């Protein structure tokens, strides 16, 4: 059971709660969502509590992440997209913190659950749809009609645009989910090799060095992926929000 690479994704109840026949238990996933929020918000809150003019280390990191996302959103969606800054910043910090917390051994990775990533991507697409229709009304549908396309090709292009729009929440959620899942499984499998080869005696210990090196390298790679996936999620969110802010402008 300990060497089962799937076991780390197992959800276990901590406080069972059931409402109207549905299971709303406080699980280890819920615990790590709370931990993610506590870590991210706590870090941002306490790092900036001094409000110093010349930032210390913590405040520097908090300001850097703030400006990183602010610049990303400004470049992606323009100044009128800045009203979504709290959303993009929360998404980025939540995913990044959840990914990084998942790198601790025995910790649960919230973003390795498809339902979580799907909910987050639906939040993005839902925001795009609601804001797009609220702001532009039916003009928002121009998003699916690129300008400068010959009339004969238009139905085909519109169909492709609609399909690509509908596949966005799927690709957005599956990308994050699959990256975290695959990375953690690979890590676990290689780490399992180390343990099982090490149990075989002197020769096994010699043979275990290779997967050990692999595990160390993969851990580094996974830290990169943890950041990269949060970054990719935030960048794509900015791009999609740009469609809501400027539907005809691409």
């Amino acid at each position, binding site marked *: 059971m300990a060497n089962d690479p799937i076991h780390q994704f197992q959800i*276990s*109840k901590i406080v069972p709660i059931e*409402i109207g026949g549905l299971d709303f*238990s406080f699980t280890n996933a819920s615990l790590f969502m709370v931990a993610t929020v506590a870590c991210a918000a706590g870090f941002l809150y306490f790092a900036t509590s001094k409000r110093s003019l010349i930032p210390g280390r913590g405040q520097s990191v908090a300001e850097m992440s703030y400006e990183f996302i602010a610049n990303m959103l400004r470049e992606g969606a323009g100044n009128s997209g800045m009203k979504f800054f709290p959303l993009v*910043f929360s998404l980025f910090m939540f995913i990044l913190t959840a990914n990084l917390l998942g790198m601790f051994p025995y910790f649960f990775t919230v973003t390795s659950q498809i339902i979580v990533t799907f909910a*987050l991507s639906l939040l993005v697409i839902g925001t795009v749809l609601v804001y797009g229709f609220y702001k532009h009304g039916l003009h928002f549908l121009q998003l699916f009609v690129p300008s400068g396309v010959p009339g004969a090709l238009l139905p085909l292009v519109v169909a492709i645009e609609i399909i690509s729009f509908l596949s966005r929440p799927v690709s957005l959620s599956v990308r994050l989910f699959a990256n975290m899942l695959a990375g953690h499984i690979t890590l676990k499998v290689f780490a399992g090799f180390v343990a099982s080869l090490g149990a075989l005696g002197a020769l096994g210990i010699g043979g275990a060095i290779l997967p050990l090196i692999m595990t160390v390298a993969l851990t580094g790679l996974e830290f990169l992926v943890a950041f990269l996936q949060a970054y990719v999620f935030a960048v794509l969110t900015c791009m999609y929000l740009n469609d809501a802010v400027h539907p005809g402008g691409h």
Partner: protein
Amino acid sequence: MFVTSAHAQTAPAAPETPAAPGTAPAGDTHAAPAGETHTETGVAHGDEHGGGTFPPFDATYYPSMLLWLVITFGLFYFLIKNVIVPRVGGIIENRQGRIAQDLNEASRLKAEADAAVAAYEKELATARSKGHKIAETAREAAKTKAAADRAVIEAELGEKLAAAEIRIGEIKRQAFAEVGQIAEETAAAIVDQLIGAKANNDDIKAAVAAAKTGA
């Protein structure tokens, strides 16, 4: 997961409120047996799916995860929007304002320094021209005074010269007047010597006068 009695109590307590609109027929099933069945099914789910479906695709915990995601992410969003973003944005804006203010102050001081330099140079130029003017007027004054002095001295000298000339004329005239008398005496003496007789004074006088006018 084992379920303690405390958990078993919270489990039926929670569905009490939605039980009325949701499951109307089971109105008064909040007793202990109902709680038992709930928790039992919960444990059964966990065992059933533990070895079966791939955990991320197991829909059993989807409602729970969605609920807790909404709660935690909603709280996080609220905190970010109302606490973190204003604060960090304020810090950055404050710093940029401070930098801009410092730059303004620096450019203001530079302008002040430039103005001071310009004023100093202007002052220097006026002082120099003033000095020049003073020197000029002094030179003019000295020149006019020297000219006046020279004129005065020249006038004095001219006067003295004139006086001297007058005196010389007088002396000359006196000398000329005496010359006649001397000539008469000399002529009388010469005549006396030459002819041994006294010549008439009037004749001598007339002869001297004739010689004078003839000369």
